[in-house]
Protein backbone atom coordinates (compact mmCIF):
# COMPACT_ATOMS: atom_id res chain seq x y z
CA UNK A 1 0.00 0.00 0.00
CA UNK A 2 1.28 3.47 -0.89
CA UNK A 3 0.20 6.70 0.77
CA UNK A 4 1.15 10.21 -0.31
CA UNK A 5 1.23 12.90 2.40
CA UNK A 6 0.88 16.41 0.98
CA UNK A 7 3.04 18.76 3.06
CA UNK A 8 3.40 21.98 1.12
CA UNK A 9 4.51 24.36 3.84
CA UNK A 10 7.88 24.96 5.43
CA UNK A 11 10.31 22.56 7.05
CA UNK A 12 8.86 23.04 10.55
CA UNK A 13 5.44 22.01 9.25
CA UNK A 14 7.01 18.98 7.60
CA UNK A 15 8.45 17.90 10.96
CA UNK A 16 4.97 18.22 12.45
CA UNK A 17 3.43 16.27 9.59
CA UNK A 18 6.02 13.53 9.86
CA UNK A 19 4.89 12.71 13.40
CA UNK A 20 1.73 11.28 11.85
CA UNK A 21 3.75 8.40 10.36
CA UNK A 22 3.44 6.29 13.53
CA UNK A 23 -0.33 6.68 13.44
CA UNK A 24 -0.47 5.76 9.74
CA UNK A 25 1.60 2.64 10.32
CA UNK A 26 -0.47 1.67 13.36
CA UNK A 27 -3.62 1.82 11.22
CA UNK A 28 -2.36 0.42 7.92
CA UNK A 29 0.60 -1.77 8.93
CA UNK A 30 3.12 -2.24 6.13
CA UNK A 31 2.68 0.91 4.13
CA UNK A 32 4.95 3.02 1.94
CA UNK A 33 4.69 6.66 2.97
CA UNK A 34 5.87 9.28 0.50
CA UNK A 35 5.63 13.06 0.66
CA UNK A 36 4.80 15.88 -1.68
CA UNK A 37 6.87 18.83 -0.49
CA UNK A 38 7.94 22.26 -1.70
CA UNK A 39 11.22 22.48 -3.57
CA UNK A 40 12.64 24.71 -0.81
CA UNK A 41 12.64 21.93 1.81
CA UNK A 42 13.79 18.95 -0.21
CA UNK A 43 17.39 19.16 1.09
CA UNK A 44 16.45 17.53 4.39
CA UNK A 45 14.42 14.76 2.74
CA UNK A 46 17.24 13.94 0.34
CA UNK A 47 19.72 13.74 3.22
CA UNK A 48 17.44 11.40 5.17
CA UNK A 49 16.53 9.29 2.14
CA UNK A 50 12.81 10.02 2.53
CA UNK A 51 10.82 9.29 -0.62
CA UNK A 52 9.18 12.39 -1.97
CA UNK A 53 7.91 14.34 -4.94
CA UNK A 54 8.75 17.98 -5.37
CA UNK A 55 6.10 20.62 -5.91
CA UNK A 56 7.85 23.38 -7.92
CA UNK A 57 6.62 26.23 -5.79
CA UNK A 58 9.74 28.35 -5.70
CA UNK A 59 10.27 27.80 -9.43
CA UNK A 60 6.71 29.00 -9.97
CA UNK A 61 7.26 32.00 -7.76
CA UNK A 62 10.25 32.96 -9.86
CA UNK A 63 8.09 32.71 -13.00
CA UNK A 64 5.35 34.80 -11.46
CA UNK A 65 7.52 37.84 -10.81
CA UNK A 66 9.11 37.82 -14.26
CA UNK A 67 8.01 40.96 -16.15
CA UNK A 68 7.11 38.78 -19.17
CA UNK A 69 5.47 35.96 -17.24
CA UNK A 70 3.74 33.48 -19.51
CA UNK A 71 0.92 31.36 -18.02
CA UNK A 72 1.84 28.50 -20.37
CA UNK A 73 5.20 27.94 -18.68
CA UNK A 74 3.56 27.73 -15.24
CA UNK A 75 0.93 25.37 -16.60
CA UNK A 76 3.61 23.12 -18.10
CA UNK A 77 5.56 22.95 -14.84
CA UNK A 78 2.52 21.93 -12.80
CA UNK A 79 1.16 19.55 -15.40
CA UNK A 80 4.41 17.54 -15.18
CA UNK A 81 4.20 17.31 -11.38
CA UNK A 82 0.57 16.21 -11.43
CA UNK A 83 1.17 13.56 -14.09
CA UNK A 84 4.13 12.24 -12.12
CA UNK A 85 1.99 11.80 -9.00
CA UNK A 86 -0.95 10.31 -10.88
CA UNK A 87 1.31 7.64 -12.37
CA UNK A 88 2.44 6.44 -8.94
CA UNK A 89 -0.88 4.76 -8.19
CA UNK A 90 -1.22 5.86 -4.58
CA UNK A 91 -3.94 4.14 -2.60
CA UNK A 92 -4.53 7.23 -0.52
CA UNK A 93 -3.50 10.87 -0.49
CA UNK A 94 -3.60 12.77 2.79
CA UNK A 95 -3.62 16.55 2.47
CA UNK A 96 -2.12 18.26 5.54
CA UNK A 97 -1.62 21.59 3.76
CA UNK A 98 -3.88 24.44 4.72
CA UNK A 99 -4.08 26.41 1.51
CA UNK A 100 -6.48 26.93 -1.35
CA UNK A 101 -3.76 26.01 -3.84
CA UNK A 102 -3.39 22.62 -2.14
CA UNK A 103 -7.17 22.20 -2.25
CA UNK A 104 -7.04 22.94 -6.00
CA UNK A 105 -4.25 20.39 -6.36
CA UNK A 106 -6.37 17.75 -4.64
CA UNK A 107 -9.03 18.21 -7.29
CA UNK A 108 -6.44 17.34 -9.93
CA UNK A 109 -5.11 14.15 -8.37
CA UNK A 110 -6.76 10.92 -9.46
CA UNK A 111 -6.51 7.20 -8.76
CA UNK A 112 -6.48 7.56 -4.99
CA UNK A 113 -8.75 8.18 -2.06
CA UNK A 114 -8.17 11.71 -0.88
CA UNK A 115 -8.37 12.70 2.79
CA UNK A 116 -8.33 16.14 4.36
CA UNK A 117 -10.70 18.92 5.39
CA UNK A 118 -12.49 20.79 2.64
CA UNK A 119 -11.91 24.48 2.26
CA UNK A 120 -14.94 26.71 1.93
CA UNK A 121 -16.08 27.79 -1.49
CA UNK A 122 -14.51 30.95 -2.78
CA UNK A 123 -14.95 33.29 -5.71
CA UNK A 124 -12.48 34.00 -8.45
CA UNK A 125 -12.65 37.78 -8.37
CA UNK A 126 -10.18 39.22 -10.85
CA UNK A 127 -10.05 42.63 -9.22
CA UNK A 128 -7.11 43.46 -7.01
CA UNK A 129 -9.13 44.82 -4.13
CA UNK A 130 -11.48 41.88 -4.35
CA UNK A 131 -8.88 39.17 -4.11
CA UNK A 132 -6.85 40.88 -1.43
CA UNK A 133 -9.93 41.16 0.75
CA UNK A 134 -10.69 37.54 0.06
CA UNK A 135 -7.21 36.49 1.18
CA UNK A 136 -7.44 38.80 4.17
CA UNK A 137 -10.67 37.19 5.32
CA UNK A 138 -9.24 33.74 5.06
CA UNK A 139 -5.95 34.50 6.77
CA UNK A 140 -7.20 36.63 9.59
CA UNK A 141 -10.67 35.31 10.22
CA UNK A 142 -10.61 34.23 13.88
CA UNK A 143 -13.41 31.77 13.20
CA UNK A 144 -11.27 29.84 10.73
CA UNK A 145 -9.35 26.75 11.78
CA UNK A 146 -5.86 27.30 13.16
CA UNK A 147 -3.03 25.23 11.62
CA UNK A 148 -3.08 23.01 14.72
CA UNK A 149 -6.80 22.36 14.36
CA UNK A 150 -6.32 21.83 10.64
CA UNK A 151 -3.79 19.09 11.33
CA UNK A 152 -6.10 17.36 13.79
CA UNK A 153 -9.00 17.61 11.34
CA UNK A 154 -6.88 16.26 8.47
CA UNK A 155 -5.78 13.30 10.54
CA UNK A 156 -9.35 12.63 11.71
CA UNK A 157 -10.58 12.69 8.11
CA UNK A 158 -8.31 9.72 7.44
CA UNK A 159 -9.25 7.96 10.67
CA UNK A 160 -5.89 8.84 12.23
CA UNK A 161 -4.81 10.71 15.33
CA UNK A 162 -2.04 13.31 15.49
CA UNK A 163 0.25 12.23 18.32
CA UNK A 164 1.43 14.56 21.08
CA UNK A 165 5.15 14.01 21.62
CA UNK A 166 6.58 13.47 25.08
CA UNK A 167 9.67 15.25 26.35
CA UNK A 168 12.67 13.05 26.91
CA UNK A 169 13.99 12.67 30.44
CA UNK A 170 17.77 13.00 30.40
CA UNK A 171 19.18 10.49 32.84
CA UNK A 172 22.79 10.45 31.74
CA UNK A 173 25.53 10.90 34.26
CA UNK A 174 27.20 13.97 32.76
CA UNK A 175 28.17 16.70 35.17
CA UNK A 176 27.21 19.73 33.10
CA UNK A 177 23.77 20.36 31.73
CA UNK A 178 23.54 21.57 28.15
CA UNK A 179 21.46 24.53 26.90
CA UNK A 180 21.08 25.06 23.16
CA UNK A 181 20.04 28.49 21.91
CA UNK A 182 18.64 28.88 18.41
CA UNK A 183 18.89 32.55 17.45
CA UNK A 184 17.51 32.87 13.97
CA UNK A 185 14.06 32.23 12.62
CA UNK A 186 12.69 32.58 9.11
CA UNK A 187 12.32 36.34 9.59
CA UNK A 188 14.22 38.97 11.55
CA UNK A 189 11.15 39.98 13.50
CA UNK A 190 10.87 36.49 14.98
CA UNK A 191 14.59 36.05 15.71
CA UNK A 192 16.53 36.86 18.88
CA UNK A 193 18.68 39.99 18.82
CA UNK A 194 22.26 39.48 20.05
CA UNK A 195 21.83 42.12 22.77
CA UNK A 196 18.82 40.21 24.10
CA UNK A 197 20.82 37.03 24.33
CA UNK A 198 23.48 38.76 26.44
CA UNK A 199 20.90 39.91 29.00
CA UNK A 200 19.20 36.53 29.17
CA UNK A 201 22.39 34.51 29.34
CA UNK A 202 23.91 36.69 32.07
CA UNK A 203 20.93 35.83 34.27
CA UNK A 204 21.08 32.11 33.48
CA UNK A 205 24.84 31.98 34.14
CA UNK A 206 24.37 33.42 37.64
CA UNK A 207 22.07 30.54 38.55
CA UNK A 208 23.95 27.83 36.62
CA UNK A 209 27.64 28.76 36.41
CA UNK A 210 28.60 25.33 35.04
CA UNK A 211 25.95 25.19 32.37
CA UNK A 212 27.23 24.29 28.91
CA UNK A 213 25.75 26.70 26.36
CA UNK A 214 25.75 26.28 22.57
CA UNK A 215 24.58 28.72 19.94
CA UNK A 216 22.72 26.72 17.29
CA UNK A 217 22.30 27.44 13.64
CA UNK A 218 22.68 26.25 10.10
CA UNK A 219 25.99 26.57 8.20
CA UNK A 220 25.03 29.94 6.70
CA UNK A 221 24.73 31.36 10.25
CA UNK A 222 28.24 30.34 11.30
CA UNK A 223 30.11 33.67 10.78
CA UNK A 224 27.48 35.61 12.73
CA UNK A 225 27.36 33.02 15.50
CA UNK A 226 31.16 32.96 15.84
CA UNK A 227 31.24 36.74 16.09
CA UNK A 228 28.50 36.71 18.75
CA UNK A 229 30.25 33.93 20.66
CA UNK A 230 33.46 36.04 20.73
CA UNK A 231 31.49 38.98 22.13
CA UNK A 232 29.91 36.77 24.81
CA UNK A 233 33.27 35.26 25.76
CA UNK A 234 34.73 38.75 26.16
CA UNK A 235 31.98 39.30 28.75
CA UNK A 236 32.90 36.07 30.55
CA UNK A 237 29.85 34.29 29.15
CA UNK A 238 31.42 31.13 27.73
CA UNK A 239 29.49 29.66 24.82
CA UNK A 240 30.31 27.37 21.92
CA UNK A 241 28.99 27.48 18.37
CA UNK A 242 27.17 24.36 17.25
CA UNK A 243 26.41 24.45 13.55
CA UNK A 244 24.73 21.21 12.59
CA UNK A 245 22.28 20.07 9.99
CA UNK A 246 19.03 18.60 11.26
CA UNK A 247 20.25 15.17 10.17
CA UNK A 248 23.28 15.61 12.39
CA UNK A 249 20.99 16.66 15.26
CA UNK A 250 19.16 13.39 14.87
CA UNK A 251 22.37 11.38 14.99
CA UNK A 252 23.99 13.27 17.88
CA UNK A 253 25.21 11.08 20.70
CA UNK A 254 23.85 11.61 24.18
CA UNK A 255 26.76 13.74 25.32
CA UNK A 256 26.01 16.23 22.55
CA UNK A 257 22.29 16.38 23.09
CA UNK A 258 20.61 19.21 24.91
CA UNK A 259 18.76 19.34 28.21
CA UNK A 260 16.86 22.39 27.02
CA UNK A 261 16.53 24.48 23.87
CA UNK A 262 15.65 28.16 23.85
CA UNK A 263 14.29 29.08 20.45
CA UNK A 264 12.06 31.44 18.51
CA UNK A 265 9.14 29.99 16.54
CA UNK A 266 11.07 28.22 13.81
CA UNK A 267 11.73 24.81 12.27
CA UNK A 268 14.35 24.15 14.98
CA UNK A 269 11.55 24.39 17.56
CA UNK A 270 9.49 21.68 15.84
CA UNK A 271 12.57 19.57 15.31
CA UNK A 272 13.56 19.82 18.98
CA UNK A 273 10.01 18.76 19.89
CA UNK A 274 10.36 15.74 17.63
CA UNK A 275 13.56 14.78 19.44
CA UNK A 276 11.80 15.27 22.76
CA UNK A 277 14.12 18.05 23.96
CA UNK A 278 12.42 20.34 26.55
CA UNK A 279 11.71 23.75 25.08
CA UNK A 280 11.33 27.39 25.95
CA UNK A 281 9.96 29.05 22.81
CA UNK A 282 9.56 32.78 22.30
CA UNK A 283 6.78 33.91 19.97
CA UNK A 284 7.17 37.45 18.71
CA UNK A 285 6.20 39.49 15.68
CA UNK A 286 3.80 37.53 13.53
CA UNK A 287 4.44 34.33 15.50
CA UNK A 288 1.45 33.12 17.50
CA UNK A 289 1.61 30.20 19.93
CA UNK A 290 -2.03 29.32 19.24
CA UNK A 291 -1.20 28.81 15.58
CA UNK A 292 2.16 27.06 15.55
CA UNK A 293 2.84 25.63 19.01
CA UNK A 294 5.24 22.67 19.11
CA UNK A 295 3.36 19.40 19.34
CA UNK A 296 5.03 18.26 22.53
CA UNK A 297 3.85 18.15 26.12
CA UNK A 298 5.50 20.44 28.64
CA UNK A 299 6.93 23.05 26.24
CA UNK A 300 6.93 26.56 27.75
CA UNK A 301 5.74 29.20 25.29
CA UNK A 302 6.26 32.92 25.85
CA UNK A 303 4.87 35.98 24.10
CA UNK A 304 5.85 39.53 25.03
CA UNK A 305 3.22 41.52 26.86
CA UNK A 306 4.57 44.71 25.25
CA UNK A 307 3.26 44.85 21.69
CA UNK A 308 6.38 46.28 20.08
CA UNK A 309 8.95 45.37 17.45
CA UNK A 310 11.75 46.91 19.52
CA UNK A 311 14.45 44.81 21.13
CA UNK A 312 13.62 43.50 24.58
CA UNK A 313 14.57 45.63 27.60
CA UNK A 314 17.03 44.38 30.21
CA UNK A 315 14.15 43.52 32.52
CA UNK A 316 12.49 41.47 29.79
CA UNK A 317 15.75 39.65 29.04
CA UNK A 318 16.18 38.81 32.72
CA UNK A 319 12.58 37.55 32.81
CA UNK A 320 13.33 35.32 29.82
CA UNK A 321 16.44 34.08 31.65
CA UNK A 322 14.22 33.21 34.62
CA UNK A 323 12.00 31.10 32.36
CA UNK A 324 15.07 29.14 31.22
CA UNK A 325 16.27 28.66 34.80
CA UNK A 326 12.85 27.42 35.89
CA UNK A 327 12.60 24.83 33.13
CA UNK A 328 16.09 23.59 33.96
CA UNK A 329 14.68 23.04 37.46
CA UNK A 330 11.52 21.38 36.05
CA UNK A 331 9.29 24.30 36.96
CA UNK A 332 7.14 26.78 35.05
CA UNK A 333 5.82 30.03 36.50
CA UNK A 334 4.03 33.13 35.29
CA UNK A 335 6.24 35.89 33.95
CA UNK A 336 6.12 39.63 34.51
CA UNK A 337 6.89 40.63 30.92
CA UNK A 338 5.55 37.67 28.96
CA UNK A 339 2.28 35.89 28.52
CA UNK A 340 3.20 32.30 29.21
CA UNK A 341 1.68 28.92 28.46
CA UNK A 342 2.64 25.31 28.84
CA UNK A 343 1.57 22.73 26.26
CA UNK A 344 -0.59 19.82 27.38
CA UNK A 345 -2.37 16.91 25.74
CA UNK A 346 -6.10 17.49 26.10
CA UNK A 347 -8.47 14.76 27.22
CA UNK A 348 -9.79 14.73 23.63
CA UNK A 349 -6.29 13.95 22.38
CA UNK A 350 -5.51 17.35 20.88
CA UNK A 351 -2.94 19.92 21.95
CA UNK A 352 -3.92 22.56 24.48
CA UNK A 353 -2.13 25.61 25.80
CA UNK A 354 -2.48 26.02 29.54
CA UNK A 355 -1.99 29.62 30.60
CA UNK A 356 0.48 30.22 33.42
CA UNK A 357 -0.42 33.90 33.73
CA UNK A 358 -2.81 33.57 36.65
CA UNK A 359 -0.74 31.10 38.58
CA UNK A 360 1.86 32.99 40.58
CA UNK A 361 2.83 29.97 42.67
CA UNK A 362 5.52 27.60 41.61
CA UNK A 363 4.23 24.82 39.38
CA UNK A 364 5.88 21.48 38.93
CA UNK A 365 5.96 20.57 35.23
CA UNK A 366 5.01 16.97 35.88
CA UNK A 367 1.73 17.95 37.61
CA UNK A 368 -1.62 16.92 36.25
CA UNK A 369 -3.26 19.60 34.10
CA UNK A 370 -5.51 21.92 36.07
CA UNK A 371 -9.10 22.82 35.23
CA UNK A 372 -7.91 26.09 33.76
CA UNK A 373 -6.79 24.63 30.50
CA UNK A 374 -7.38 27.05 27.63
CA UNK A 375 -8.42 25.52 24.36
CA UNK A 376 -6.76 26.61 21.17
CA UNK A 377 -9.15 29.29 19.87
CA UNK A 378 -10.83 29.01 16.51
CA UNK A 379 -13.64 27.11 14.92
Amino acid at each position, binding site marked *: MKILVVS*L*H*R*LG*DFFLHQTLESSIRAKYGQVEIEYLI*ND*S*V*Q*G*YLITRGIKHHVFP*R*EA*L*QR*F*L*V*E*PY*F*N*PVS*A*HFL*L*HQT*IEQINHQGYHAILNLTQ*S*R*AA*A*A*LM*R*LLRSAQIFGPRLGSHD*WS*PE*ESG*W*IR*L*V*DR*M*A*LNPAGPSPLQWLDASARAAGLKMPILQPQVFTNSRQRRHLGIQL*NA*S*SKEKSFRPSELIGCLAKVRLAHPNLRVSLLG*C*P*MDQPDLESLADTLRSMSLAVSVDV*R*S*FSEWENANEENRWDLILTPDT*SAMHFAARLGVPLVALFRG*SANPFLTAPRMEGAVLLQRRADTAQAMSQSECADLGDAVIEVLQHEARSKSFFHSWITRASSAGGLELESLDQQPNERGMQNEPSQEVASVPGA
Partner: protein
Amino acid sequence: MSQELRSFLLQALQRLEKADRTLESEQGYNEDLEILRMVIELTREQVPIENTRSTPRAAR
Protein backbone atom coordinates in the same frame (compact mmCIF):
# COMPACT_ATOMS: atom_id res chain seq x y z
CA MET B 1 6.90 42.92 -0.22
CA SER B 2 8.22 45.66 -2.48
CA GLN B 3 5.82 47.64 -4.64
CA GLU B 4 7.64 46.45 -7.76
CA LEU B 5 7.27 42.80 -6.82
CA ARG B 6 3.65 43.38 -5.96
CA SER B 7 2.97 45.01 -9.31
CA PHE B 8 4.60 42.05 -11.15
CA LEU B 9 2.40 39.67 -9.20
CA LEU B 10 -0.70 41.64 -10.06
CA GLN B 11 0.27 41.67 -13.72
CA ALA B 12 0.85 37.92 -13.60
CA LEU B 13 -2.55 37.47 -11.98
CA GLN B 14 -4.24 39.53 -14.68
CA ARG B 15 -2.59 37.44 -17.39
CA LEU B 16 -3.57 34.23 -15.68
CA GLU B 17 -7.16 35.31 -15.30
CA LYS B 18 -7.31 36.40 -18.92
CA ALA B 19 -5.90 33.00 -19.94
CA ASP B 20 -8.47 31.36 -17.66
CA ARG B 21 -11.37 33.17 -19.37
CA THR B 22 -10.01 32.43 -22.84
CA LEU B 23 -9.48 28.75 -22.09
CA GLU B 24 -12.92 28.36 -20.56
CA SER B 25 -14.63 29.97 -23.55
CA GLU B 26 -12.60 27.96 -26.08
CA GLN B 27 -12.38 24.53 -24.45
CA GLY B 28 -14.89 24.56 -21.63
CA TYR B 29 -14.11 23.09 -18.21
CA ASN B 30 -11.22 20.62 -18.35
CA GLU B 31 -8.02 19.61 -16.53
CA ASP B 32 -5.96 22.37 -18.14
CA LEU B 33 -8.38 24.92 -16.74
CA GLU B 34 -8.06 23.36 -13.26
CA ILE B 35 -4.27 23.57 -13.45
CA LEU B 36 -4.49 27.21 -14.47
CA ARG B 37 -6.80 27.88 -11.55
CA MET B 38 -4.31 26.30 -9.19
CA VAL B 39 -1.66 28.71 -10.51
CA ILE B 40 -4.11 31.54 -9.87
CA GLU B 41 -4.51 30.34 -6.28
CA LEU B 42 -0.76 30.17 -5.82
CA THR B 43 -0.44 33.71 -7.15
CA ARG B 44 -3.06 34.98 -4.75
CA GLU B 45 -1.19 33.34 -1.89
CA GLN B 46 1.83 35.51 -2.54
CA VAL B 47 0.13 38.37 -0.75
CA PRO B 48 2.14 38.82 2.46
CA ILE B 49 -0.84 38.96 4.79
CA GLU B 50 -1.60 35.37 3.96
CA ASN B 51 2.05 34.36 4.30
CA THR B 52 3.43 32.47 1.33
CA ARG B 53 4.96 29.97 3.77
CA SER B 54 7.88 29.38 1.48
CA THR B 55 11.13 29.51 3.33
CA PRO B 56 13.52 32.40 2.70
CA ARG B 57 16.35 30.47 4.39
CA ALA B 58 18.19 27.45 3.10
CA ALA B 59 16.86 24.25 4.65
CA ARG B 60 19.50 22.42 6.62
